């Protein structure tokens, strides 16, 4: 039976997947099925977000892992034979998807960042390869076409409360040999700057020592660490030397680097060459950092920072 299925362990991610699923389903006039945990008004929200059918997963025992559902969902998928199955790329979701793909003997595009349907009906999916050096475009010739989609790749589907859909519940799966014995939520402790996934870098454009707190606040918000350019540590002594990034300092390779008031001297830029995404905020439009950056905001830090923090709070839900 044709259809587009989505599976996400969290509601916000289900809504993001529904954005893609809705688009793909409407092209061929098929239904969208959302498989989601039975929590609160999850089902209604997914229906409002574009799902035609909701398959609810009853709450598992404390010691059971999400993976317990794999055989159940595999059986469902084998029975219904959907065209497409999209799964939110959380750690558990990626594990789930790969094992499901193995059971369904089909292809899976991991960490898919874009997908579209070609004229001949082929679904073309994009993913990064070689550490982000390349974009790989793939297609899948077996059914269903599967992809895991990283959180926040797509905007959540808008709610249309007038929609209706069917809801059904799956019976609890049998327990598995893997037992969850504890769940710990994150505590944010400070990290080594070279290990950080995000680095907020303070440059000479920071006017006062107290302004570093803005960088700290930003780092806290996105789960990163604060580093600096050489003048900040060596001349101003606002931060210790081991946080100095550059040719003669440390080399950092986080996923995200945000330079605040960093001019972008080559010696500093050398230290961030391996960063995946480089961002800069600087009031000087001609600052060399903008040549080394992927994204840049031209503006005064005092004006930009409050806005940036506010928008990030909105985006990350913190």
């Amino acid at each position, binding site marked *: 039976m044709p259809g587009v299925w989505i599976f996400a362990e969290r509601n916000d991610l289900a809504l993001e997947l529904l954005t893609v699923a809705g688009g793909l389903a409407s092209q061929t006039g098929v239904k969208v099925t959302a498989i989601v945990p039975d929590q609160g008004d999850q089902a209604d929200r997914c229906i409002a977000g574009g799902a035609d059918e909701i398959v609810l997963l009853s709450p598992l025992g404390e010691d059971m892992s999400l993976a317990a559902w794999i055989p159940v969902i595999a059986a469902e998928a084998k029975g219904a034979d959907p065209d497409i199955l999209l799964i939110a790329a959380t750690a558990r979701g990626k594990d789930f998807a790969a094992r499901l793909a193995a059971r369904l003997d089909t292809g899976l595009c991991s960490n898919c960042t874009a997908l579209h349907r070609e004229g001949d009906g082929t679904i073309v999916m994009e993913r990064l390869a070689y550490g982000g050096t390349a974009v790989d475009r793939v297609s899948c010739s077996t059914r269903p076409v599967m992809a895991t989609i990283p959180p926040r790749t797509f905007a959540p589907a808008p709610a249309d409360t007038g929609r209706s859909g069917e809801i059904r519940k799956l019976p609890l799966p049998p327990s598995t040999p893997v037992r969850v014995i504890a769940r710990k939520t994150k505590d944010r402790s400070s990290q080594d700057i070279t290990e950080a996934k995000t680095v907020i870098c303070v440059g000479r454009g920071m006017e006062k020592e107290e302004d570093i707190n803005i960088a700290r606040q930003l780092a806290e918000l996105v789960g990163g660490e604060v580093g600096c350019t*050489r003048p900040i540590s060596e001349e101003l002594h606002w931060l210790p030397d081991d946080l100095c990034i550059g*040719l*003669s300092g*440390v080399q950092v390779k986080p996923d995200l680097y945000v330079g605040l008031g960093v001019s972008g001297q*080559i*010696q500093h*830029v*050398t230290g961030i060459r391996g960063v995946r995404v480089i961002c800069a905020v600087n009031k000087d439009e001609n600052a*060399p950092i903008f*040549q080394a950056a992927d994204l840049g905001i031209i503006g005064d830090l005092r004006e930009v920072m409050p806005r940036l923090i506010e928008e990030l709070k909105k985006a990350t839900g913190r």
Partner: protein
Amino acid sequence: MEFKLTEEQELIRKNMREFADKYVEPIAGEIDENSRHPAEVFKRLAEGDWMGIPIPVEYGGAGADYLIHILAVEELSRSCASTGFTVSIHVGIACMLVLLNGTEEQKQQYLLPMAKGDKLGAFVLTEPGAGTDVMAATTTAVLDGDAYVLNGTKTFTSNGPTGDTYMVFAWTDKAAGRKGMSCFIIPKGTAGMSAGTHFQKMGLRSSQTSEMVFKDCRVPKANLLGKEGAGLVMAMAGFDHGRVGIAAQSLGILQAALDESIRYAKERVQFGNPIARNQAISWMIADMATELSAARFLTYHASWLKDQQRVFSKEAAMAKLYASEAAMRHTIKAVQIHGGYGYCKGAKVERLMRDAKITEIYEGTSEAQRMVISGNVLR
């Protein structure tokens, strides 16, 4: 003819690259600035068998080719020429002297801990009045019962303040001329031997260099290395080994200069374009890359001859002469490419240029190498 490293050689080179990137590169600027011997690095080098690569396993080494030692010195020097040199002189001269000339007891007692990296070796030959002119040395060793008594002053001793096991050369019979010098193994702490404070040098700053003073220093007969009077011949053979190491050190410096120059020339924008697009710059880089390749072939060839147990004095001198002079020439160019930034502390090329100079001086100056080479070809 095959211009190819074996899989093992390639893997070992790669591992040393990783080691140097991880443990040496980050501190290279600091140990240069502070003229500090990085004991923590040498402990790690010992753990990875890097301190005795060509020494047989039974004497504490890794039992590998000399070429592998050369590759290790090259990669290490690419991050820090001082650290590379310390390994080179320790293995290439101190360890090799005992391996080639020592008795079984001496090998067990002195070579084994050196090759394992527990003890650091030093080569004590040069004197204030005897540089290239080794025969002008004045340090003497006089047999007195069961011991030799050494008196004299040595200088420019690498690993002087930090060494554990010293290979010391002194006249046992000055009248015998070239057959009158002998070599003694003297462990640290021997009464009458003392190291002076280390010299503040232009470059190679983390390698510790000092005077060594011998005052009625009694050395047991058992510590005579090789035969009495064979010292000079042994020293010259030691130099052959050591010089290939200095050539490798020069390769490391030159490779680093090339890496830095390429990187900077592509990044530095002037007049709207990366300076690499200027022929003046790109040709400098072309020459640098070419001479690096030439130096590398000379060096690996000399090392290969050593591994084939063939004579390699001339080739060692050629490799050292060419590689060290190429390193000097092109580190100057590398600074030029970097402009003002290259002249400032913290730029790697600035350190490379200072470090390069010594490679033309020690273990035989360029002039001494030309003497060896011309002596060979004009024979």
